[in-house]
């Protein structure tokens, strides 16, 4: 860049004072608001030594909480992935009435507080709820049990995959699928040979985000799980319980696991972004010279 002479007006935000101030504000706020708490987790988790950390992690309740969290993810993530692909496909490749409405419905879990979702589930599946008595009569337990936890997790994370895929698939249009079918490919073949390879990075990106959210979900799950230690406690709920029991070291130790998962998620996310996920493939310029 050329050096500015005195008479040219500075571009907006280009003054050295303004620039330095902005950078320092962001750095300071970032450090205090985001980095410091994360570091505290690490420090506090080991505050009472490695032994306590190990004991907390290996405690049956903690282990059960981890297992439950993993279980919820193992069910919710694949289901929501399938849902996300189906929804994105329907919205981008078909024309039908209520398409705009479906888009809004998919977004609801993003805008609604998870605890509202939890309470709503209480009213649907609870003993005083709509299906509650029927389910109870058949001995099916959804609330305060694993199915409720999984359902609540699924509600909260339903939009993640769909939201990653819709803009990408919209940009790609229907040409490729039409070309494949005109060449004689079946619907499945078209999906696996043509659609999937072109959306795979965005799909994986959505799955990673969805997984992170399932494992970290607190609000909705806390309402429907009943917080029964060693039975319906997921990892985030377990952390809260330990904290309320004044077991700070234990709470932090458990929290460190979630933090670790989060860090891995971010690394995976960055790696995927580099592969072009979430970004539209640069369109091949058709007007190029032969």
């Amino acid at each position: 860049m050329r050096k500015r002479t005195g008479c040219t007006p500075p571009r907006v935000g280009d003054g050295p004072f303004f620039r330095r101030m902005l950078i320092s504000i962001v750095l300071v706020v970032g450090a205090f608001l985001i980095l410091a708490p994360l570091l505290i987790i690490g420090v506090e988790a080991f505050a009472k030594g490695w032994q306590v950390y190990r004991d907390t992690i290996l405690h049956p309740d903690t282990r059960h909480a981890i297992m439950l969290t993993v279980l919820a993810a193992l069910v919710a993530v694949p289901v929501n992935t399938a849902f996300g692909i189906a929804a994105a496909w329907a919205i981008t490749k078909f024309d039908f009435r209520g398409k705009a409405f479906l888009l809004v419905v998919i977004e609801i879990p993003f805008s609604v507080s998870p605890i509202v979702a939890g309470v709503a589930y209480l009213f649907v599946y609870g003993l005083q709820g709509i299906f509650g008595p029927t389910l109870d009569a058949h001995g099916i337990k959804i609330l305060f049990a694993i199915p409720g936890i999984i359902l609540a997790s699924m509600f909260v994370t339903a939009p993640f995959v769909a939201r990653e895929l819709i803009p990408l698939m919209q940009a790609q249009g229907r040409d490729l699928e039409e070309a494949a079918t005109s060449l004689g490919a079946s619907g499945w073949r078209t999906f696996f040979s043509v659609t999937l390879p072109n959306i795979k990075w965005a799909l994986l990106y959505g799955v990673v985000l969805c997984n992170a959210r399932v494992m970290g979900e607190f609000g909705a799950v806390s309402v429907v799980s009943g917080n029964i230690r060693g039975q319906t406690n997921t990892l985030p709920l377990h952390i809260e319980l330990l904290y309320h029991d004044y077991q700070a070291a234990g709470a932090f130790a458990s929290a460190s696991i979630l933090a670790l998962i989060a860090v891995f998620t971010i690394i995976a996310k960055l790696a995927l972004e580099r592969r072009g996920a979430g970004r539209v493939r640069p369109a091949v310029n058709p007007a190029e010279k032969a």
Partner: protein
Amino acid sequence: MKIRLDHVVKIFETFRAVKDVSLEVESGELVALLGPSGSGKTTILRMVAGLEFADSGNIYFGDQDATDIPVRDRGVGFVFQHYALFPHMTVAENIAFGMDVSKVKREKAAIRARVKELLRLVRLEGLGDRFPAQISGGQRQRVALARALAVDPKVLLLDEPFGALDANVRRELRRWLREIHTTLGITTLFVTHDQEEALDLADRVVILKDGHIVQQGTPEAVCRDPKSAFVMKFLGDANMLAADVRDGKAYADGAVIDAAGLADGKAELYARPGDLDWAPQGAGIAATISRVMDRPGGRRVIATTRDGVHLELDLEPERAVTSGDNGFVTLRRAKVFAA
């Protein structure tokens, strides 16, 4: 394979529509669907392909009613406007795709041999390992054609095949497509909004407007005998003069031309720039030259009549005219349509 459209109707919520189109394409014929955007030409093509289904009417392939046969089983080769090459597959994989997914199982070696043969046909030998992003627009166009031909289609359909290419590549590919058609003899239907392309390439041109066929015929027939002012204007530059018809003759601003068969009354007279001539003295439409544009093949002259109408004339390169000259525009030939 002969294609026949029988009173086909397709209405969209948007402006695009096909209103009662009947059309026959003879076996081995190369036919252009020509029309401005929104005339329904692409919709017709997509209905023939099976990518779109008619609201009413029937489409026949030979004697078979193909109206409800899905695209997958219709046996057509479709070349998309933007080629729709699979970006994650190489050129060879793109071409092989139709054979790979076919219900008719083929040996890997046979597929490879066929891909090689097709690459030679479209003059892309040695580019089989490239990805679509690594080749030029004209080459992509040829890959798309090879991919469509690989499934031995009964009918070849092309949607604006050269729309995205620059002028030189277009002209070259046009000639080449004509050669391929002569070699293979596949019934071919293509859509274009470019009259030059349609006239250069097709055996027969079908001109569409607002979902209707307004005229069809050989390039010679539609050029020499346009049946309406729309066709006249759409096929190329045309000057329009208001005219009066009296006793089988059209009178327009000092020019007279035969208009046998037209009823007396107001009419529109159309003449191509090449149909007009310039005379410094004599009779004709009095006008002043307002601009001269020199082109490789001649001189395009804009003359303004006393009524303020701008007329475009094509004159030979040797003609000495400059802007400001007064004189007369004469008619060599013209078409008169009732207004």
